[in-house]
């Protein structure tokens, strides 16, 4: 296993370099530049050229890339051009918000998804099952921003129970967490339900029933426990999305976070910030995928062999 882990980590190194090239190129391919977002009414073209030179924007792209890469390898993302702060500081300021929202949403998906999935499986093919799965299906097919807007309309405006936006108070987290969490919840509920039904058909379950173990105990202690294996895999794979998976929701709820920072910086072509954020997101996904694979490999040794 240790050998497998090491191999997987080493395999990420070339991917990382590949990602840095793509991130850098993609950002510079977007038309426009940050200078016009820096200057104010009255600036002469010569002054603009001076500013561009100050940030090295007049140099060839490969030199700019090289300078950025060497910085990144030293753990520094450089300085924002329009926002005029070290990119690391900006990310540090925002990442907490993203982690809280994404993490809580993941917990919400897991708890509510497993519960509803298990209930649906226990009463399979009844009205309970059908209505639960119907609601779950609805939750995964509506656009997140739309759901967010409707939740605001209902809970914040009509009822006045929760704040509309921002991140000042913990209550401001409830609506965004539900909005982000519902999509993942649908997937978890569906997987739990099917997995429990698969396990329920196995011989050992019949045996338990025959031995006179109460039905609820069979379902909760035995079936659910075994059925959770694919669910855990699924959840571990979603870890990577914690940071970047809620851009639209951050936008709708006017929450700070990496997504909001990225969208704003992209609009202003603040290259170092966009590069830094994209690289962070990519690294989160890479690490999340790695964790997911490791969880799976730990549970199913065949996986280790296959990837050889």
């Amino acid at each position, binding site marked *: 296993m240790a050998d497998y882990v090491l191999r997987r980590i080493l395999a990420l190194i070339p991917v990382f370099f590949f990602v840095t090239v793509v991130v850098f190129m993609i950002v510079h391919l*977007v*038309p*426009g*530049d*940050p200078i*016009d*977002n*820096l*200057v*104010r*009414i*009255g*600036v*002469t*073209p010569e*002054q603009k050229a001076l*500013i561009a030179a100050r940030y090295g924007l007049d140099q060839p792209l490969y030199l700019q890339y090289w300078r950025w890469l060497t910085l990144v390898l030293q753990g520094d993302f450089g300085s*924002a051009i*329009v*926002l*005029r*702060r070290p990119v690391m500081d*900006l990310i540090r*300021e925002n990442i907490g918000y993203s982690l809280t929202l994404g993490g809580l949403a993941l917990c919400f998906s897991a708890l509510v998804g497993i519960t509803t999935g298990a209930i649906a499986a226990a009463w399979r093919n009844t009205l309970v099952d059908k209505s639960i799965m119907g609601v779950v299906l609805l939750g995964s097919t509506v656009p997140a921003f739309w759901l967010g807007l*409707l939740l*605001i*309309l*209902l*809970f*914040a*405006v*009509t*009822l*006045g*129970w*929760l*704040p*509309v*936006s*921002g*991140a000042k*108070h913990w*209550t401001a987290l409830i609506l965004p967490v539900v909005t982000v969490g519902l999509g993942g919840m649908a997937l978890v509920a569906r997987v739990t339900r099917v997995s429990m039904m698969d396990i329920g058909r196995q011989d050992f379950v019949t045996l338990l029933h025959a031995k006179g173990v109460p039905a609820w105990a069979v379902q909760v202690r035995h079936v659910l426990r075994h059925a959770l294996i694919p669910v855990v895999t699924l959840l571990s794979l979603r870890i990577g999305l914690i940071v970047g998976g809620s851009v639209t929701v951050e*936008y*709708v*709820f*006017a929450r*700070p976070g990496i997504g*909001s*920072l990225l969208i*704003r910086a992209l*609009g*202003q*072509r603040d290259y170092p910030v966009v590069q830094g954020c994209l690289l962070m997101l990519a690294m989160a996904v890479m690490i999340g995928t790695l964790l997911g694979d490791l969880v799976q490999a730990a549970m199913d040794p065949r996986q280790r062999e296959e990837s050889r």
Partner: protein
Amino acid sequence: MTHSTSRLKLALLSATLACGVALAPLSAAVAASEAVFVFPNSHNGAPTLNPVKTTLDTLAHELIYDRLIEQDADQTYHPHLAESWESSPDGMLWTFKLRQGVTFHDGEPFNAKTIAWWIPKFAGTDNDYLVAAVDKVEIVDDYTVRFVMKHPDANLLYNLASGFMGVPSPKAYEAAGDTYGVTVAVGTGPYKLDHFTTGVETLLIRNEDYKWGSELAANRGKAHIEKLLLREIVDEAASYLELKTGGVDMVVDVPNALLSQYKSVKDVETKALPSYGIFYMPINTSAEPFTDLKVRKATALAVNQEEIVSRLYRGVGKPAHTFLISSLPESKINPQFEIRHDLRQANQLLDEAGWKKGPNGIREKDGKPLTVKLWTQGDTEFKRMTEVIQAQLKAIGMNGEIGVFDVSSIRDQYKKNQHQLAVRSYGWNNADILDWFLSAERQGYPNVSMWKDPKGEELRKAALTGSKTTEERIANFKIYHEYVLSQYPVVPIYEPDRTLAYNKTRLTVPEKIRGPKFTAASIIDTKVND
């Protein structure tokens, strides 16, 4: 509230009750003399509170720092940290008498030495143009300074009154180095900085020693509100909801499209602010068919400013018939140059120019249809206006194909000269905006009209650098402004009203708003109700 909305809300309400969720209602009540304001949208994302280096001056800058001079809504100038000033007849010397007894938040005194240190700090920054005409600052005595000019600058007072010209504490500024404006910001203003997070919020605490308010404020002493939280909310609808639900106490600068909604909320009072900008349509004078003056004029006359104000904005704001905001004296030009809707003449001009009506109502010339690119940026307000302009151009047989870009992309397109018509806006209260958008030295961007006209250049230079006094500058800019409008490189559309909305049970806001925008003077006078 219409019948169907209440039905919808009822349905939503019963759905929630069915969920059986019970949460305690949130109380928005804040302690007595605290208030939460939402920044004007255009102030969002300011990177630093360093006035010398920032590219965006915000309400927070205005509150932390004082300026030498303040400007009023009618564009007149009033003393603040400078008690009086005078200039030599040739405009080469300016003498300022400074107010005595002013101290910075860190206890440092404010005097002539501060100014002599401060002005040279602008050299090499993006804001250096503000004092570029100043050659050096001489200390006459402890409270008198003299600016020796490189050349006359009839715009010096305007520049000194701008938000970038807030005076920072030399000691704090030098001590903090690059972090000045992010972690520390020290001025002489009515509020001290508690903390600042870019794009999120700024928390300000009242300066208890403040007793040098400008004459724009009724209250010359310390502000009434002890703690002021300034929030940045990008989504316009979210700001509205926050005010409606009591999450914030004031939204500075309400979008016109939402004004009627704000007005319908109980407890919410709205107040008109001086206007500060124009929506307009630049015409690319270098692109066919707009190289033809007749086509440009026809396009300009097709725009129905009155319809946009009355229908799209339901009477909020003013139609714009010149390129400058109406409070500027340079906007009072000979009415014959104003651009006004005239459908008949527009159609006649296109006929004369050889564009004949085709079968589907779109004009044609030499077999080519009159289809042009009509571009704008992604914000809701621009898209709304552009769609109406598109419909208005159809009435003269011009087919505008809308393209929506983000702000940076569209600038790139302008620089590559890919555009024909665009819908844009600017916010500025000085006639030199004409130079910025129409100077032949800045073709592409910001001269989106790609306008290059020898006579225009001559008049522009005369107005910008040839004027020695304020009166001369106004006269010269009027002539330039009239000539610009006669050549149709831009079509003025709309002068939006700027509006403040606040919770009247929480706040009392002064009757008359002084200053070109809602700024420190008015905030000092704002009270929190008991």
